[in-house]
């Protein structure tokens, strides 16, 4: 059944209890919401870490307000963090929270709408002042006007209790008040029986420079924990057993962090220096931030003057024998288009990472979308084909980055990697790979003349398998040569206006991309009796997968195939599509992949599109697919 449909049972469990008792749950969704200044992201991170320790499967979703900080206590200022944990493997951060922690009226107002009846709401009553209520347009106090009947409301004076708890501590009132998020964390940690040692260690590390703050935050955390233990209001404590997960070492990871580590890995496994040319842009900036910390892997990061310079510098570095990488988001991809076209002509390795956000134009920079597939596939003048791939989940960003590097290095081509804000900032447990098992990406630079006469060098003489041209880096004796953006004669690379040569080169550049060896797409159809195939790409993997599972559990057969490679498409895709009566393609755009599938395979694929800046919910996909499965 759909993931969110356990909610009631959960709340019932809560109410039904008398004295403190412990209840088992298989899954919980908690949302921490507060003002931008309340440290909700940190609180969520810590709760996630504790939960990871415990071995639950996890999926998280931070929700940042717009880039600019709004005034304290206003709706646009609300920041939230949702964590979903379970004793089985889950695929999404959950559609609807079972528990909402609301640090102020704005947080309550902004989030209560997402709660199913019966959900627990923990509110910081201290913040429910006339002024704060007015700020967000609450005429009456929702904690008193009965508008929250039907929810399990837990009013807690978080701020004052924290301040009281820290009276002994040698910290300012302001610092004490700031620690209220740790009080909340302590309370929730108690409620869900989370191990707290890692949090205490974390706080010591974080405030190493100011021990008094460490002590204060730890005290606040413990106060929250003890409050749960003692207060009457929380009569039940919950447990969620560890999930059966593959043995190994895990960490929780966001997509941007995994992407950065994947690039580091690509450098290590190719033995090449990495050069990242980037211009900051939400939500891609973190990859630049992260990589700039890893210079020890012979990684150079450059914050360029703009996106064009960023990709230009990366291309220059690739020309010099490094793996050139550039990271950006939609508006930046548009600006890089001309240089990508040059890279296509030069046939040099280049990795372009687009962490997609909602467009067009500046759009909604902190919201997610999948609408850059068009520009990735078709956004260059002339016939300028490139390879395009997309990660399906936060941890998958690691492997996607390595795959992008593999294609770029093996085939000497630009590769566009389409991540998005959802995978970039979402997190999940990641089974750490064995480094030695990662693909070997070493390449051979040209060192010798390759002409028949044994003395001339032909920069556009191709490898018959890969159609890749030699990578002859400056500094190599005997191979001096010139390349450029004008059309090049086959083999010699000299400037050529010959009509037949141009036709040949245009087709060859297209053939190079088609020739890229990509794994076949896999179909998940456990009982093999599905007539409907759901085809997706990128970050929709989680919600689509959850919806398919839910349908199967209800005896409705449905098959799922998810594309990592969008150009070239897997060789078996045509057969896969042909094997089903109906193909449904859910996308967070107006049907960009569907367009390609229809054109290439003449399959009357059905599009399901939502462009809200938010990931799909499993529930909406479940009901949509149910329809198709039942009524074709």
């Amino acid at each position, binding site marked *: 059944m759909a993931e969110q449909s356990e909610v009631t049972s959960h709340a019932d469990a809560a109410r039904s209890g008398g004295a403190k008792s412990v209840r088992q749950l298989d899954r919980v969704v908690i949302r921490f919401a507060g003002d931008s200044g309340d440290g909700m992201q940190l609180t969520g991170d810590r709760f996630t*870490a504790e939960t*990871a*320790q415990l071995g639950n499967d996890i999926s998280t979703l931070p929700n940042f307000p717009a880039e600019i900080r709004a005034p304290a206590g206003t709706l646009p200022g609300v920041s939230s963090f949702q964590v979903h944990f379970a004793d089985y493997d889950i695929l999404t951060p959950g559609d609807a929270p079972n528990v909402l922690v609301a640090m102020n009226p704005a947080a309550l107002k902004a989030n209560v709408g997402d709660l199913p009846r019966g959900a627990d709401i923990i509110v910081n009553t201290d913040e429910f002042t006339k002024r704060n209520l007015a700020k967000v347009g609450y005429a009456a106090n929702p904690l008193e006007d009965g508008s929250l009947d039907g929810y399990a409301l837990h009013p807690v004076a978080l701020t004052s209790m924290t301040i009281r708890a820290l009276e002994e501590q040698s910290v300012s009132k302001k610092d004490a008040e700031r620690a209220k998020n740790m009080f909340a964390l302590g309370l929730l940690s108690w409620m869900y029986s989370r191990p707290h040692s890692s949090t205490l260690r974390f706080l010591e590390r974080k405030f190493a420079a100011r021990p008094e703050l460490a002590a204060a935050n730890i005290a606040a955390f413990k106060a929250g924990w003890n409050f749960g233990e003692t207060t009457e209001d929380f009569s039940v404590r919950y447990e969620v057993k560890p999930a059966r*997960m593959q*043995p*190994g*070492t*895990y*960490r*929780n990871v966001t997509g941007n962090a995994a992407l950065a*580590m994947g690039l*580091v*890995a690509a450098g*290590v496994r190719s*033995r090449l*220096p990495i*050069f990242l*040319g980037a211009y900051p842009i939400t939500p891609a900036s973190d990859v630049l931030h992260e990589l700039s910390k*890893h*210079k*020890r*892997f*012979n990684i*150079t990061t*450059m914050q*360029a*003057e*703009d996106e*064009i*310079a960023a990709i*230009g*510098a990366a*291309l*220059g*570095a*690739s*020309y*010099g*024998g*490094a793996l*050139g990488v550039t990271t950006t988001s939609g508006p930046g991809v548009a600006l890089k288009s*001309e240089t990508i076209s040059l890279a296509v002509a*030069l046939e040099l390795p280049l990795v372009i990472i687009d962490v997609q956000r909602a467009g067009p134009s500046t759009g909604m920079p902190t919201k997610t979308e999948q609408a850059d597939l068009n520009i990735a596939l078709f956004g260059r003048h002339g016939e300028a084909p490139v390879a395009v791939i997309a990660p399906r989940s936060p941890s998958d960003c690691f492997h996607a980055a390595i795959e992008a590097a593999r294609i770029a290095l093996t085939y000497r081509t630009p590769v566009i990697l389409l991540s998005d804000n959802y995978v970039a900032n979402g997190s999940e447990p990641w089974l*750490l*790979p064995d*480094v*030695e098992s990662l693909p070997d990406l070493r390449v051979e630079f040209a060192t010798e003349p390759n002409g028949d006469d044994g003395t001339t060098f032909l920069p556009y003489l191709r490898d018959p398998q890969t159609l890749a041209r030699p990578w002859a880096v*400056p*500094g*190599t*004796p*005997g191979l*001096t*040569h*010139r*390349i*450029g*953006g004008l059309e090049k004669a086959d083999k010699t690379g*000299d*400037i050529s206006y010959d009509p037949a040569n141009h036709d040949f080169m245009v087709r060859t550049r297209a053939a190079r991309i088609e020739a890229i060896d990509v794994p076949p797409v896999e179909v998940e159809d456990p009982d093999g009796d599905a007539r409907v195939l759901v085809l997706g790409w990128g970050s929709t993997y989680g919600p689509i997968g959850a919806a398919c599972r839910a349908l199967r559990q209800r005896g409705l057969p449905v098959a799922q195939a998810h594309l990592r490679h969008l150009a070239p498409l897997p060789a078996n895709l045509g057969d896969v599509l042909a094997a089903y009566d109906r193909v449904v393609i859910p996308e967070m755009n107006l049907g960009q992949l569907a367009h390609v599938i229809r054109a290439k395979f003449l399959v009357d694929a059905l599009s399901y599109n939502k462009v809200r800046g938010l990931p799909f919910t499993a529930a909406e996909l479940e009901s949509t697919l149910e329809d198709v499965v039942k009524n074709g």
Partner: protein
Amino acid sequence: MAEPVALKLTAKDFKSDQEVRWCPGCGDYAILAAVQSFMPELNIPRERIVFVSGIGCSSRFPYYMNTYGMHSIHGRAPAIATGLSVSRPDLAVWVVTGDGDALSIGGNHLIHALRRNVNLKILLFNNKIYGLTKGQYSPTSEIGKITKSTPTGSADSPFNPISLALGAEATFVARTLDSDRKHLQSVLRAAATHQGSAIVEIYQNCNIFNDGAFDTVKEPATRDDYLIRLEHGQPVTFGAEGQWCVVHPPGGFGLAVRETATVAPADIVVHDATVPDPAYAFALSRLPEADLRHTPIGVFRSVRRPSYDELVRDQVDAAVGKRTRTPEDELGALLGSGDTWTVL
């Protein structure tokens, strides 16, 4: 970057197999010949030299040099060359660009390369016109210029490339002429040995679309009175008999030209390209008048500032140097950093 062993290269060694294709009489030929015959001096193996250009007649230059070369896209050469130079300190990276390529579409990359002091030698072929696209005005064309795109005259006052470079914190700035090989090469020599960005404006005649743009500083009749040849450590005088000189009018602002006879020798400005304050070089850059009267050529400014390349490489090398583990082990450590847990 000089090599211990003498490579005994000649100009011929720097000619590529490509047929040179500029209009007969184009100033680019002279510059190409001057560069090719200068290169051997550097005693750098050809494979360690890279010419990166944008688009324009001038930007075809790399195809004619038997070195590594990239004819990139319009205006982007400084950006591309920056990535190459920073990641390959062993190379000598030269940028060839035009007044449109460098100052119109490429203006931002140019000023940022100069600000960063990237280790690039930038040759700006200034013919005050768009040659390749057949004669539209450029950011260095004089105001009121009548061209295909401005039949009633252009409405924008031009950039002074030297002033712009100085305003962008350039550490080495010079100007020379396509037609004066000796001077051109002396400037190349100074530029080549500069650590960091060196920008050289080369007045270049486009005999098809802007013929004679620099005649006043080239014609025997006028050049002596129009050209100011800057020599480090020498008083700034010019004219056939040095009858003109440059002074720093007391109390006044900037620099001015006076009759040498009327000035106390001590008051004549002695050229020093190494003054830290760019205000001096900037003042020099303002001497020329619309007809090119009082045009200084030579090295305006040459000061030492750590190059972007050095600073960036040092950070990377230091970090790599501190590494004790194999790359794979270091990677393993990175992946396993932060909170981890183990499932048995």
